[in-house]
């Protein structure tokens, strides 16, 4: 896998956004990709500001103020400027080509309009926004765009886990792993999920052979049970820095989406071509 751009949605300056940005910068630098900072002016907010009783409660001041469209747009522009300035300062001196874009729309649609082929989208997610996370993940599956969801920073082992069904294309899986592992610690755990299917041992063997020539170390594991509980136990045991999942195992994907706060990279179905057509 070779990403042309790493697109990060910058909503605010919270710690979760900062963690996502650190990840996006690291990936862009490792993969020599362009970093695109994307600020979305939420059209719902503009619509809301046009309502006659529109008002805002400041946080954490609890100060109230009436809003209109002009005030909301001014506020969004100010936020965009602030984020752009801080992004520039954060990237100063780093060998990363970057741009900053402002788009307007609903979050998913706006993101979708901004991404292109061979883009990786990075978003930050809050623990409470599980449903939104799932919605976004589904939306990007539809768009066939890889989506990396990052929560707040946590201490984990210096390795990544790739969870895939044994019918996924070995070449894509191995190439993806090598590309990402250069940033995530040069150590990969390959997990053969849905291992009731035949040939999983041969599948893992193929991957091992493909990685033999690289500088990446690898381990292998089988995850027969892809329910939420089994996934949680496996992650608690391995504590990977990144979980890579293929989108065409809905049960596994949903279990992983629930298993926050692990950063999750969901690869769309067309990027995970079935080896056996299954």
């Amino acid at each position, binding site marked *: 896998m070779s990403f042309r751009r790493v697109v990060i949605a910058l909503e605010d300056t919270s710690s979760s956004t900062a963690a996502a940005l650190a990840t996006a910068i690291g990936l862009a630098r490792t993969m020599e990709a362009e970093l695109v900072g994307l600020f979305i002016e939420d059209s719902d907010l503009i619509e809301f500001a046009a*309502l006659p009783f529109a008002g805002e409660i*400041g946080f954490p001041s*609890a100060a109230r103020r009436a809003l209109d469209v002009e005030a909301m747009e001014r*506020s969004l522009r*100010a936020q965009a400027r602030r984020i752009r300035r*801080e992004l520039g300062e954060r990237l100063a001196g780093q060998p990363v080509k970057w741009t900053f874009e402002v788009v307007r729309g609903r979050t998913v649609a706006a993101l979708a309009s901004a991404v292109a082929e061979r883009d990786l989208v990075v978003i930050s997610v809050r623990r409470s926004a599980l449903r939104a996370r799932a919605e976004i993940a589904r939306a990007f599956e539809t768009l066939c765009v890889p989506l990396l969801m990052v929560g707040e920073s946590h201490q984990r082992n210096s390795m990544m886990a790739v969870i895939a069904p044994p019918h996924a294309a070995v070449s894509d899986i191995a190439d993806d792993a090598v590309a990402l592992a250069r940033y995530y610690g040069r150590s990969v755990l390959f997990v053969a999920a849905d291992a009731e299917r035949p040939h999983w041992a041969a599948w893992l063997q193929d991957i091992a052979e493909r990685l033999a020539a690289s500088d990446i170390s690898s381990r292998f594991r089988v995850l027969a049970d892809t329910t939420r509980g089994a996934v949680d136990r496996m992650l608690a045991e391995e504590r990977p820095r990144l979980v890579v999942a293929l989108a065409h195992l809905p049960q596994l994907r949903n279990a992983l989406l629930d298993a926050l706060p692990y950063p999750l990279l969901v690869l769309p179905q067309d990027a995970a071509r079935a080896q056996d057509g299954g």
Partner: protein
Amino acid sequence: MWEAIVAYGESIRVAPLVGRLSPDRLTRRCAASALMFDTTGQAGDDVEIIGQQRATDAIGFGVAIAEEGYNLFAMGSEGIGRRTLARRFLDQAAASRRVPSDWCYLFNFHVPHRPRAIALAAGRGVAFKRDMMRLVDDLRIGIPAAFEADEYRTRRQEIESELSERQEHAMHTLGERAKQQNIGLLRTPAGFAFAPFAGDEVMSPDKFNALPDDEKKRIEQAVAVLQGEVDLVIEQVPKWRREAQHKLRELDRQVTRGAIASLIDEMKSAYQAMPAIVHYLGEVQEDVLDHAHLFLQPKEGEPAGALGFVVARPDAADALRRYEVNLLIDHCASTSAPVVYEDHPTHDNLIGRIDHLSHLGALTTDFTLIKAGALHRANGGYLILDALKLLTQPLAWDALKRALRSREVQTEPLAQALGLISTQSLEPEPIPLDVKIVLIGQRDLYYLLHAWDPEFGKLFKVAVDFEDDMERSAESELHYARLVAAMAHKNGLRPFERTAVARVIEQASRTAGSAERLSVEMSQLLQLLVESNYWAGARNHLAVTSDDVQHALDARLHRLDRVPVHVRDEMLHGRLLVATEGDRVGQVNGLSVAELGGELFGIPVRITARVRLGSGSLVDIERESQLGGRIHSKGVLILAGYLAAHYAPKKPLSLSATLVFEQTYGTIEGDSASSAELYALLSALADVPLSNSIAITGSVNQHGDVQAVGAVNEKIEGYFDLCKQRGLTGDQGVIVPSANVSQLMLRDDVIEAVAAGRFSVYAVQTIDQGLEILAAMASGTRNELGRFAAGTLNARIEERLDEFAERARAFATPRERRPQRHDAGRK
């Protein structure tokens, strides 16, 4: 030993030490044969100080007595050996005293601007400082390790997540409740808002406006209610945050306590004999619990700020300075109590100073920048100070007295003491003071301080008065010789031949200004020995000879006599008028002395007098022109008293006289020329010429007694040098007071000239004796009728004064005369 003066007329008076002095009266030789060694290499060298018994007794007493206020003031001339003697006694006393405590300043965790002073057993300070450094090093490893453990991270995340979840949950719950009313919770750039939803989207204004009024009203009311509930949630947030912070703090303390407890307990047990240190370590422990973050270094990628900016934290190394030990006084290498000499006793050098560091243009300080002063270093021992240096340094004297009075050293910046700065600085805890001070200064200074500083007498109760000279005897000469030997040995000089030592002793007498005394000025003696040694080396002598000593003396004089030689040249060329032959009425040669570079030079000066009818006033032209000092003026005024009592006891002194030092353009001080002035005056009165071959020195009192003066040797030699250059005639000489004869230590060339009859030194006791030498005629004494013998000098003077009185009477108006007669009649 002496020659009687020639008698004139009926008046013949002979007295001991009066008249022309024989050569053997002009100096006192030191018998080299009595020194009992060939060179100083064979003599003992155990003598360091001589002739200072009074000072030795005093300093022994002062050092030994331990009561408060018994500090010492060693007074005397420069170079007399005050510091050497004091040092010797103090070193002896210090050797028998225990080594005092080490002192250190520590951070005061309760009052940071008041660093804590703690005493440790001598030599333990270094170990304590090292132990604290190690402790901090260990903490810098142990604390980060504890904070990097999974346990801590997990518990911290739990607390942070709890706060986050609490906020999110509250808002989420609110959002869910709103959703039941088709109202959505939106995040705006600055907070939250509630909007009516139509499906999954915010209701557009058109749709909203199309709603029935009741529905619009319902929505607005529902939004208002929800906003009120948001207020309630937001009100809780600070409280939740405080709770989370408290939990985090407690977590940090727990983790830190676990990491440091064993380290600090171990150190406490090592210092359990020192309660102050144990107490301090307890405070360190508490402080570390609250400041564990100081031991943590920011890690790469640590998301401490917006978009991953690491918030700049104070430099950890600087922050950890609070746990350092400022070892102010370290006695680990000491074997006895300290004896400190502070050569530059400024305020700060005495009581210590507080340095500052420049940081981004601002000056900052802390307890590690407190520096010890001389009082700290000498605490528990002795401190030697130069009084003059001390008194000329701003506030140094006050600071010393304050320390002695309060018996503690309080380090305070000078600018703060002067009130020049008002910014908050440090106020270190004072350190208890137990020190004995030895001030070294001039005698004048001691008496001035005693007279003008009421505290001085209470704080410096022991006066150590050093002699400038000592009695000269055969025994003291031997002592002196041993002193010379000791100094030569101690300073690595060549051995001195005994004749050289004898010459040194003779010079010591000359320096003392008396043939019967020996100077005990050690610095001058050492200078002579060093210079003699140099010349001996320059001449390839293995031992210093008397010639080397003499050459050193001559060379030193030569280095300094440019001015006297120039003045003499002016006399030789006739630009300065000083006759050394012939005679003249109302004109004599006086002898002045000038001090140049520590050496005295005698310089002859012409003194003239003119008289006329007047009202009894003596006009001293030097005083009138403000060139005469007060003592000089006093000497001239005494002359009037002598004239009136000696020649006009029953008549008005109808005289007006002027006296002047010719061709002098600087201030004249002293009364040593008052006899010369009187001779000039009497010559003018008698109209009798006096010899200009003879110069005069000596003061006079109202009875006509000639009194001793200073620098008599230099004065004689100054005149001799002038005469010698013009050619000695045999008539030339000097009249000196007979009281000065015992002080004569003249140069060999002068003595040789006297022995050859080419120069004379006369000693006189009275003015009459001097007059007879100068005028070569009898002065005359009063007979039984109260009249001077006819033809004598005094008779001629009296006749002149009678003449003035008669003429004055003739000039007087009848009105002026009547009251005089009336007054006389009444008497």
